[in-house]
């Protein structure tokens, strides 16, 4: 028996559990059925763990304590989040069969909240890509059109939530990997401020950029999940020691007097005019609700992609040195000596996109290139941050499109790395500056969702959610569902 998550937000699920209208076991069973019923179309999960999930749900029902809002509610986890005793691959061949011996902090926090993890979602290999097509295991499809990409790298999590398999999921975002797939699938995705959520147990791609965040169908649900996963962690030396506020505090629907900045660069060259039009209509709606809207400039925006790909690939090339075939995962056969084992394992175990980034990073950090590339990119990063600081002296949030286009066809861009890199232009600066960024659905172009990106000051997720909530309540776009909703 399946369960129709399109008709219930997290608060509604919580009430049904509290009132014993449904048990955690029934909800978990139904979620497993949801995935069995639709994953042939969506291909959102690399693996599921029904036995562990049902055992956990049974314990929850026996205890009968549903005080926590997430207790008994199923969740999907991106397959780069370490789950103890459950295969975690990062969608890479090189980690096939790897079972972490500990839980990522976010996994532990969700588990302590009573959320029930039902499986690991597909992604680009080691989160490198924007379409989930670089996964070694499968090609996930867009929940609205199964011939289109779900975006990436957290495409499995986005598709699973948008396709109604699970009520929420976690992803990670290094250059847009939560916000862009959320946009492509018409749901809500948050990349929190750098340091807001512990990165411990997240497979490191670029450690100065990576953040974990939630995918949900509504802004309120998103704030609820972020509250559960945020906070200090001694295991992540960059986790913020700030108090975690109530992220739902400003979800009133009121944005009167809110000062919104719209960067002219976010509507420049390369942005599909239909997407621009849709996003401008969303901004007009915020203005009609009483916000003030002004055009501003973030002059270094166009240099973000180059700076990002240098910094990210440099950090990734260093982080991915650990995959050498010695301690876990795949090991190449037929090797002559230890050096040969490293080289063959890595050459056979990594896909092309991962190799490209390792090569770019190794090159950018090499003696002759360090100053001209790595150090130069770090200086451009300073200029991008100063651009944001200047705007935030006068404005509360910055808004624009999340991605330059709607979802494109499967196979269309995967062989053209430069085109795929340039498509990250609108999300990348937010990671370089460590800011919070949210994507909410802003309507449709040719039947495919368009994302409105809302960027906030550091640690001001509350105002970002306030803005997203006001727009969502005014537009009521969450009432529109993809065809796959009929399967539940």
């Amino acid at each position, binding site marked *: 028996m399946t369960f129709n998550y399109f008709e219930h937000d997290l608060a509604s699920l919580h009430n049904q559990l509290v009132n014993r209208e449904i048990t955690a076991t029934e909800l978990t069973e139904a979620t497993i059925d949801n995935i069995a019923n639709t994953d042939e179309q969506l291909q959102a999960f690399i693996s599921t763990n029904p036995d562990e999930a049902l055992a956990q749900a049974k314990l929850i029902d026996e205890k009968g304590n549903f005080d926590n809002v997430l207790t008994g509610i199923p969740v999907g986890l991106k397959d780069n989040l370490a789950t103890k005793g459950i295969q975690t691959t990062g969608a890479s061949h090189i980690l096939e069969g790897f079972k972490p011996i500990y839980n990522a902090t976010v996994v532990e926090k969700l588990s302590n909240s009573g959320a029930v993890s039902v499986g690991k979602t597909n992604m680009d290999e080691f989160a490198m890509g924007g379409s989930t097509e670089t996964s070694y295991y499968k090609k996930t499809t867009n929940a609205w059109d199964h011939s289109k990409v779900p975006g990436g790298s957290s495409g499995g999590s986005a598709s699973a939530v948008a396709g109604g398999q699970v009520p929420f999921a976690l992803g990670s975002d290094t250059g847009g990997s939560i916000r862009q797939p959320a946009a492509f699938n018409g749901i809500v995705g948050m990349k929190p401020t750098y340091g807001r959520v512990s990165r411990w147990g997240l497979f490191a791609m670029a450690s100065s950029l990576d953040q974990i965040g939630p995918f949900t169908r509504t802004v309120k649900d998103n704030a609820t999940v972020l509250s559960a996963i945020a906070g200090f962690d001694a295991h992540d030396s*960059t986790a913020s020691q700030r108090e975690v506020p109530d992220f739902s505090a400003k979800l009133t629907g009121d944005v009167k007097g809110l000062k919104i900045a719209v960067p002219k660069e976010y509507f420049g060259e390369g942005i599909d005019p239909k997407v621009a039009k849709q996003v401008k209509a969303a901004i007009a709606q915020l203005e009609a609700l009483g916000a003030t809207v002004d055009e501003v400039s973030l002059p270094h925006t166009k240099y973000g992609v180059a700076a990002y790909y240098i910094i990210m690939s440099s950090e990734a090339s260093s982080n991915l040195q650990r995959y050498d075939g*010695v301690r876990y995962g795949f090991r190449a056969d037929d090797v002559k000596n230890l050096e040969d084992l490293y080289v063959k394992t890595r050459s056979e175990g990594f896909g092309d996109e991962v190799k490209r980034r390792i090569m770019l990073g190794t*090159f950018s950090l090499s003696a002759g290139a360090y100053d001209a590339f790595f150090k130069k990119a770090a200086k451009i990063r300073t200029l991008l941050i100063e651009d944001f600081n200047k705007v935030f002296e006068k404005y509360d949030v910055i808004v624009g499109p999340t991605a330059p286009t709607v979802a494109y066809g499967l196979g269309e861009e995967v062989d053209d790395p430069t085109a795929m890199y340039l498509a990250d232009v609108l999300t990348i600066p937010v990671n370089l500056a460590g800011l919070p960024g949210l994507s909410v659905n802003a309507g449709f172009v040719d039947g495919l969702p368009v994302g409105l990106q809302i960027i906030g000051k550091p640690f001001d997720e509350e105002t970002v959610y306030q803005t997203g909530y006001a727009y969502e309540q005014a537009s009521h776009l969450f009432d529109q569902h993809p065809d796959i909703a009929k399967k539940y």
Partner: protein
Amino acid sequence: MAETTITRDEVAHVAGLAKLAFNDAELDQFTTQLSDILNIFDTLSEVGTDNVDPTYSVTETVNHLRDDVADNWGQKQELLDNAPLAAAGLIKVPAILDGEGE
């Protein structure tokens, strides 16, 4: 600034540093693709950055440290279970030099 170019030999050299091996066709493909990407990187030279400090991290404060106390240990068997090859409670790898067996 002149366009940065990368030769096939340089790609092979960087691959060696990164412990990756490419066949001839892959070397050609990576040389072309990396050159295209380096052309994007070259746009940064348009921006004057003489008096700009580099940013390597966006943490608010200095990284915090914790006491050096083990809190996740005693899982030797689980660690060994993940190793592709283990023997006598140790992870097994081939010899460093050719022809010396295991």
